[in-house]
């Protein structure tokens, strides 16, 4: 059926496939940022985690021959970057945003420098799961070729939501994020909670990076991220610090990014600049539509407004 009319159905399928393929790194970075921000700290440096993760994951996968080891190392690289960010931020009178930008420049430069030898070689890719095996349309099958990391992300989102709501540690993170003073009064070590939250967030963003280099598009080069880490940080804001909304927002963004190429490849040739800009237009549109003069963003951790 799809083959009979590849036109608009094709666009729909491409957007669906794109949502999954392009959206996965967004999902991991935004979940990581969500965790960090829930603890009352902002980490703009996740772009660096993404790029360093992509680079180190690719490098390790190439050297060791194991893509999954690459994913793990990418995550650990993210942990280290998160650790540095957290240690710097917990000093007196240090601004999170400034440190984040510094970390972003540092990590990006370091990744480009260390990544030089890995631009040429071809590393093993992460395997994919054929969810579309039931269909005889190759198009649909290609769209539903899903990476295990995406599945992990999809499970992780509601799990995180549950964690923030019911788990003791989750409540701890939220308390620290809502009110530093209250947390201190309760005898919580605020810096330690934020340290772990930043490292955990860094891990997720690093894993997101390994998805870029090891699965889709599936190679390391310096233009790989092109700002996706930063966009994911913005995603958290309009996902209202809710991990499940982060999932939806990532899918939406992935789909929007796929729209431009998909429309052109079915022969809808006008307006490609506009469609290529779809994710950005979408960001602006949603921000305007959901902003309010009267109150701060619902769901925003209390400590965030002090930054």
């Amino acid at each position, binding site marked *: 059926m799809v*083959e009979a009319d*590849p036109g608009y159905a*094709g666009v729909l*399928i*491409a957007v669906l*496939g*794109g949502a999954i*393929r*392009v959206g996965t790194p967004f999902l991991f970075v935004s979940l990581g940022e969500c965790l960090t921000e829930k603890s009352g700290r902002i980490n703009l440096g996740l772009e660096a985690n993404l790029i360093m993760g992509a680079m180190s994951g690719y490098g390790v996968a190439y050297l060791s021959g194991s893509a999954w080891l690459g994913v793990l190392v990418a995550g650990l690289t993210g942990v280290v970057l998160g650790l540095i960010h957290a240690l710097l931020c917990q000093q007196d009178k240090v601004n999170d945003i400034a440190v984040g930008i510094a970390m972003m420049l540092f990590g990006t430069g370091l990744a*480009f420098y260390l990544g*030089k030898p890995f*631009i*040429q070689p*071809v590393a093993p890719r992460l395997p994919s799961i054929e969810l579309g095996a039931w269909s005889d349309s*190759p*198009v649909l099958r*290609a*769209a539903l070729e899903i990476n295990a990391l995406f599945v992990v992300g999809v499970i992780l989102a509601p799990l995180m939501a549950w964690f923030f709501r019911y788990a003791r540690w989750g409540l701890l993170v939220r308390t620290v994020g809502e009110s530093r003073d209250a947390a201190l009064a309760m005898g919580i070590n605020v810096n330690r909670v934020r340290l772990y939250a930043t490292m955990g967030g860094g891990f997720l963003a690093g894993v997101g990076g390994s998805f*870029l280099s090891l699965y*889709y*598009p*599936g*190679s390391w*080069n*310096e*233009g*790989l991220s*092109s700002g*996706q880490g930063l966009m994911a940080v913005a995603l958290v804001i309009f996902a209202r610090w809710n991990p499940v909304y982060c999932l939806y927002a990532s899918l939406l963004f992935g789909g929007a*990014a*796929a729209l*431009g*190429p*998909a429309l*052109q*490849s*079915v*022969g809808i*040739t*006008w*307006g*490609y*600049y*506009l469609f*290529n*800009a779809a994710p950005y237009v979408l960001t602006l549109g949603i921000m305007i539509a959901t902003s309010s003069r009267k109150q701060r963003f619902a769901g925003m951790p209390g400590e965030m407004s002090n930054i």
Partner: protein
Amino acid sequence: MSEQKLNAGRRKALKTLSALSATGLLGSFVPGAWASAKKVKMGFIYVGPRDDYGYNQAHFEGKSSLSNLDWVKTFDEENVPETIEVVKSMESMINLDDAQVLFPTSFGYFDPHILKVAKKYPDVMFLHCGGLWDEKKHPKNVGSYFGYIDEPVYLAGVVAGHMSKSGKLGYIAAIPIPQVLRNINSFTLGARSVNPDITTNVVFTGGWANPVKEAEAANSMADQGIDVLTCHVDSPKVVVQTAEKRGIYSCGYHTDQSVLAPKGFLTGAEWNWSKVYADYAEMIKSGKKIPNLIRGGLKEGVVKPSPYGKAVTAKAKSDADAVLKKFMNGSMVVYKGPIKDNTGKTVIPEGKAYTQTDIWLESMDWLVEGVIGTTKG
């Protein structure tokens, strides 16, 4: 900006001072002997990484080939954006490395950056890769060099035309500038010389290096039943790899990408800058005036086709080889009327032919019949 100018000024002043003191000390030094001991100093600037399997790597390979000439000294810088950054790079190569000739290789370096710096340093030659130099408008110490890469692209089109089963080809391009459009048109004309019903779908990604969009475009095209992909972006790596993963054919660009797609790689269009840069070095050494415009195609050795991949059939090879022969003896004309554009308008009437060197082809703003795409976003 002002600080930058100041720095450059200070460097220049220091240099003059030290030169003065040197001549003062070594009063009897013969300037001629000095000049002959001097090496030819050439600086190269790339917009991306040196080893991107693409445009920048092609230039880097050209530059590296000069290392076996011991009278040439080269230096280069990679990842220089098309902004004020390139002005800084150029000035530091001139002031600190004594560059006599600069090769800022990216399209967007030319206007305004090269033009601005060239006026300030009239003794340095600025050679830009691209077809932008205009005798009437631009300084004399600026020039451009470019290859007719659409010739090997045409050859790739011939091969693609033979290999495609669906009759649908895909072209992933950055932005609709004349050089890109010319490649798309030549590819399509090559393919349609084999099978007049073939179509080429074009996706413009909007940037020279956007791996995620390129992968997305390649996947969407594969979904649409397109079975040969090629591209004009800085690094074809992602496109060629994605095509291989989807089990379709690919044609390379800029350098040889055959190792990235051992099954599906057909052929490709490559630059051969080694020759061009060695020629320039020779001209500078012998003190010849450097021409402002250098152009060449397959015949002149500025461009070359990639070796055929395993999948290419004997028929396709012999057909493409025949066309290559015609290019080599100069009898091949790609843009020969009647040619219609994809809106049905006749752009080149019957009996009219534009040979490769024709400057009219360098302002191309149309897509040939059979291309699905438009030049206006």
